[in-house]
């Protein structure tokens, strides 16, 4: 029941925030902050209560799931309200809530129009994303998948910047069309399973191991793959992302980059590959090529941008390419890298978007050609920007490095050539990240301007994210341990590639 309550807290919090508009000007954001805080505390206490043994045992024992909930919903089609949480979901839900806090903080003084509705939409997006990470019934999963987009759409459409209509629409149509294909795939899969099982079920556990003929399996897999890759975003389905990120309000960008993109990666890892192991393995070379193309293409385009937010957006395309690579390499090390990248990229990109938002709030422009010399006016801002820029380019000692290194290491066993190409992306990352620092913070200011440096609220937020990244970089083991049992059970579902088995048995990472 605890998982339903978790989602319920966020939903009710949203309603309260909506009502809080009447109680005073600043109340909604406090409501929002408290709601997310309560949700986070609630999550951690229930996890600590229900499953201490989960963290002590290794994968071999069957208790993969920390908590599990199943209620009948639409028995006519075997649809149930089925939520479950394992290490992977836990990690991502914690990330979601943390970034939720950061999003609230980043919108603290930015939003002056209908604050209550803004915070409500923010909380409802969080509820939807949390649902996506927890749902184990494919119908329910699809429901959360679609529903989380509506508050996000409203965030962009109402509080976005100059070109918000176009961006919001593009975002929604891309994700909806691919979502519709996924719905078709889900229905086909459930129908095929019902032919063998005799009754309808949309439960993940019932659908695992459904045998389809290979042609059908390919098309059904493709439906899932498209939906998830659009969200990831993988090359060439990324074109909605720069627009949506650039036009969204800061908190919207933080949520988009930090957690919405991760739902795509999560979907691939949890659903697309395990449900269709054969087809996915056959498709892996194409997926990995798309991933490598995304890494390079994102980096090159990021370098071509003059808009601060657009640059960060394209860098996301590049970084999420690593996730795609890691997932389709499908061995322990690469998968660990992909999961690590999901967390590290979520934090570092959220920080960069917050930075972009802070600059825009002060200068009223995102054009880096009009910045220059910001360090001089705002040294704290400059230092933070430098930290997250080097995190983004993969400086050893920070989370992103661990992630990208693991992905490349795991990938090398599967496909050295693609690894070599993808590794070039890291050079690209160094170029655009440093170039961004150069353009925005170094040099001489072109115009005279007065603006405040980061205040204590902003510094506290930035410090939190820095600590997370340093911890991830210096001691990633807890995260790896949390994800390991999940990866073990997922990998059992799929045929292994021989070379990879050999590599994992050597145990490079000394688990």
């Amino acid at each position: 029941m605890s998982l339903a309550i978790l989602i319920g807290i966020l939903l009710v919090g949203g309603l309260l925030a909506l009502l809080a508009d009447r109680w005073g000007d600043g109340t909604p954001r406090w409501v929002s902050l408290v709601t997310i805080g309560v949700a986070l505390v609630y999550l951690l206490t229930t996890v600590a209560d229900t499953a201490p043994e989960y963290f002590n045992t290794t994968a071999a024992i069957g208790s993969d799931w920390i908590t599990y909930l199943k209620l009948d919903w639409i028995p006519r089609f075997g649809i149930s309200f089925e939520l479950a949480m394992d290490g992977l979901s836990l990690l991502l839900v914690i990330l979601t809530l943390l970034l939720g806090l950061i999003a609230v903080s980043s919108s603290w003084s930015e939003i002056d129009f209908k604050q209550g509705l803004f915070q409500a939409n923010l909380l409802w997006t969080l509820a939807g994303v949390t649902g996506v990470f927890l749902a184990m019934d494919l119908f329910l999963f699809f429901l959360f998948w679609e529903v989380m987009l509506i508050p996000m759409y409203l965030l962009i459409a109402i509080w976005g910047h100059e070109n918000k209509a176009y961006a919001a629409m593009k975002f929604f149509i891309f994700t909806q069309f691919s979502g519709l294909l996924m719905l078709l795939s889900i229905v086909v899969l459930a129908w095929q399973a019902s032919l063998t099982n005799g009754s309808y079920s949309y439960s993940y556990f019932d659908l695992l191991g459904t045998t389809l003929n290979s042609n059908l399996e390919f098309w059904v897999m493709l439906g899932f793959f498209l939906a998830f890759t659009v969200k990831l975003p993988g090359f060439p389905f990324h074109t909605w992302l720069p627009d949506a990120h650039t036009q969204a309000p800061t908190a919207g960008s933080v949520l988009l980059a930090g957690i919405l993109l991760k739902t795509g990666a999560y979907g691939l890892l949890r659903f697309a590959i395990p449900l269709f192991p054969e087809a996915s393995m056959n498709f892996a070379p194409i997926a990995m090529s798309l991933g490598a193309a995304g890494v390079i293409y994102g980096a090159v385009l990021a370098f071509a941008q003059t808009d601060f937010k657009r640059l960060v957006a394209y860098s996301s395309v590049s970084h999420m390419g690593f996730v795609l690579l890691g997932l389709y390499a499908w061995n322990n090390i690469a998968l660990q890298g992909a999961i690590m990248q999901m967390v590290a990229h979520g934090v570092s990109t959220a920080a960069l978007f917050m930075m972009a938002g802070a600059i825009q709030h002060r200068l009223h422009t995102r054009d880096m050609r009009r910045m220059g010399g910001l360090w001089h006016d705002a040294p704290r801002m400059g230092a933070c920007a430098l930290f997250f820029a080097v995190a983004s380019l993969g400086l050893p000692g920070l989370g992103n490095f661990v992630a990208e290194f693991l992905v490349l290491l795991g990938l090398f066993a599967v496909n050295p050539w693609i690894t070599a190409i993808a590794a070039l992306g890291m050079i690209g990352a160094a170029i655009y990240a440093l170039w961004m620092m150069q353009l925005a913070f170094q040099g001489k200011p072109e115009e005279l301007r007065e603006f405040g440096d980061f205040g204590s609220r902003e510094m506290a937020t930035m410090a939190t994210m820095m600590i997370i990244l340093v911890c991830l970089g210096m001691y990633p083991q807890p995260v790896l341990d949390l994800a390991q049992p999940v990866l073990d059970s997922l990998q059992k579902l799929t045929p292994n590639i021989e070379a990879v088995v050999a590599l994992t048995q050597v145990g490079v990472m000394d688990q």
Partner: protein
Amino acid sequence: MNIDDLQGLLPLLTLAAGATALMLQIAFARNIKLTSFLAVATLLAATLSIVWAGESAPRFVTPLLRADKLALVFSALFCVAGAVTAILSMDYLNNRGDEPEEYFLLLVLSTLGACVLAYASHLASLLLGLELMSVSLYALIAYPDKTKLPLEAAIKYLVLSGAASATMLFGFALLYATTGTLQFSAMAQQLANIDTGNITLLVASVMIVTGLGFKLSLVPFHMWTPDVYDGAPAPVAGYLASVGKAAVFVVLVRWFIASNLFRFSILIDCIALLAILSMLAGNGLALLQTNIKRMLAYSSVAHMGYLVIILVVGSDLAHRPLAIEAGMYYLIAYTATTIAAFGLLTLLSAGKSQKENIQLHDVSGLFWHQPLYACLMLVALLSLAGIPLTAGFVAKFYLISSAVSDGRWILLGSLAIGSSIGIYYYLRVVFYMTRRVEEHKNIPEAAHGLIEKFMTCTLIASILLLGIVPQSLMEYLRSILQLVN
């Protein structure tokens, strides 16, 4: 005819008696309040009488009408839809025209026609119901607003609908010439002996498909739809789009099942083609509209395209029950949603400004000064677009499930493309509604009575409930359709 037969016909009798009473009341003393009260009471009484009528179902009442659960469910739906339309129209009429009392009389008569269609088991009763519904609608379109546009719309509808009925009648005649019967189930026995390639039958089916395609506004028989909706008063357009189509579709399904028309593969292929054209063209043309009524008109073309998929899927006996069930659920969801969408237009047109033809920029900023009405429109649009938690999503899911079970990939592909186009124009309205206050000035004044607010909440709740807890309705439809099949 005995007392049980009469009991089965109770909704029809109630409506007919109510219509007579209304006519007498208007003849003796014009009083809009009393008339509207009587009309709503009649419609609600007819709805309630269905509980009692259900006790004697299923039975044939004369060869013309079949009182079964299916007929009763849809009669209830039409009566409720009629009542909602009547309630929403009150303010609209008060601020318009002189002596609008006959409007309610016509509305009750039109509902009676729709209910007869739900009962029909014979081509004669089909025609009777259809004409009763349509003739009332001609008048309803032209009646309340005595300006040029509604008049033009009414004449257009009258002429084209008349032509379609004539074509259809010719088809019936040819059908009668080959089979010697007009009764659905008797026709099944006759048709079973006839070769499916029979040329007279082919001509007949082309004519009938044309006529019914017109009534359902399937592409390429859809040309009248946007003009008529545009000209018609908003509540009437909503009624026409929901009940006017649902009633025709119900009788079509009944006829297809009873006479087993599914075995004529050419007919089924024709319908599949019409479905694809309607889905693509309807959605495509809706993109170009800035008038919300015209946009909803084209969207209704597209929705009818989605809906007739179930006739194609139903051609396979194994998947027929699921397909019919999906179709019935879709009809209910579609009716609720359409009434809600047009309901908002009615509320906006009802104010003193008498603004007709709501354009996109007329709703801009609606979220900020009429949040409740904006929520109604938001929910209705999301439901039309098929976003989860709304009735429209469950209906679309149902439809997709049935089409997948039969492996109709081309139809499913068109549905996916059509729905994706649809998202754009539905969301465009949402975007206009969320515009900031500075960006708009001349908003039409909306109705703001308690009754309107209550109706708005009811409509929102019904769309959401159909989308969130559909199980009981699904089971109920399933149980009654087992009897029909």
